[in-house]
């Protein structure tokens, strides 16, 4: 969050996972990308990335395919709402807990 810049001490945060410490354990719904419907995957082009642009936590990569960092994703669902091809599904987190176990 805050950083020493030269001699001047100010509040200076750089974007990136972890700037706010470990978060995200309260997620109820998990966004899962359906790669069959995802635009950059289907076209194999650096295109769309609406999810990357809208994610308020910056946890979606601008890559083919886009990847979601679930360590920091809070499950807000904005990516799923904004995805023009409805490629992102919000799935009950409890299902994954069972699967993980």
């Amino acid at each position: 969050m805050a950083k020493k810049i030269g001699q001047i001490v100010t509040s200076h945060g750089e974007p990136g996972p972890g700037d706010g410490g470990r978060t995200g354990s309260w997620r109820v719904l998990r966004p899962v990308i359906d790669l069959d419907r995802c635009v950059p995957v289907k076209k194999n082009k650096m295109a769309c990335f609406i999810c990357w642009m809208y994610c308020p936590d910056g946890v979606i990569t601008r890559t083919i395919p886009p990847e979601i960092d679930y360590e920091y994703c809070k499950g807000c669902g904005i990516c799923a709402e904004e995805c023009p091809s409805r490629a992102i599904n919000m799935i009950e987190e409890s299902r994954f807990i069972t699967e993980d176990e």
Partner: protein
Amino acid sequence: MHAIESGNFAAATGVKLARVQVIAAYPITPQTPLTEKLSEYVESGELDSQYIPVESEHSALSVCIAASSTGARAFTATSSNGLLYMSEQVHWAAGARLPIVMCVVNRGIGAPWTVWNDQQDSMSQRDNGWIQLYANDHQQIIDTVIKAFHLAQDVSIPVMVCYDGYLLSHTYMPFEIPSQEKVDSFLPAFSSHYHLDPDNPANLNSVTLPDLRVNVHGDMAPAYMEIRNALHKDLRGSIGVLEEIDEKYKTIFGRGGCPITEEYLCEDASFIAVSIGSLSYHLRDVVDTLRGEGIKVGVLSLHLYRPFPDKAIIKALKRCERIVVFEKALSYGYGGMLYGDIKSALYDCDERPLVQSFILGIGGREIKTRDLYEVLKEACRTSKPKTGESIWIGLKL
């Protein structure tokens, strides 16, 4: 080049010579002619700067904060209630360590409405982390504005240059306008400790926790208290930086030499009148008269009020018998602010002079030389000096 012009003109010319890149200001009496002159300079092409019209003082300083964050030399100016309206951003600019320069053309504060001069506006904003410099005449206005830009960027702290409304802002006085070449040799091109860079995005001054925490690089980052402590320490350190800058200015322009306090006949003085701004030059006339009557009295003027120059004050005042503080502002319910500051600075001295406090000229009440003469003479001569409370002088009811 010499000019006979107004104090506002002197300030605007100083700002132009400093090659300011962004100006945002909202007109308010008695600051208005300063911003009008700057807009003329920009419109005519004399000054290559962005002049951003805004709908309020809060926005004016917000624009300067944004401009300064992107790495531009930014300037604004205001007076009175305008300064108070931007107060939230005034604190912000200091906490964000942005080297903005602002002229405050001193005027009383409403209610009731007043447009006349006292120093309540800037004096009441003394605790917000800015450096406050006060000018006593037009030459000091232009010189101080130019020096302020140097100081602000050297210490990454915003600087207020304050001068009395009307008494200085609207009166005409001869002064020297330095050449652009000389100012360029004095004032380095703008640089800041950090500026926003689209290739390296950053959040500035977002919520900072009460305690340290690890940043994105895994390093311990300072928390709110560390950041605020650094501001305080750097403010204290800026006194020495101001002295160095003044020395450089003196070498190039031949003027200066008293950036913190300015003494007049203080060397052998038993009594020293203390004031801020144009009143301290007014007091010189009174001191001359009193000297003619054999009273060993001098005047000490403070150019720097925040950070408070304790050491310079102690050095200048500790040997005299009595100090007489004249102020055009007060901390309501307490008394003179400068009076309180001087008393506490002297508290640790082995021998402390008596300190008397007078409040005058509030809301533009005329300060008559005769009144000053009588009050100062009485303060020096009386066997029962009035201490412990600020006395208002010039009241008529």
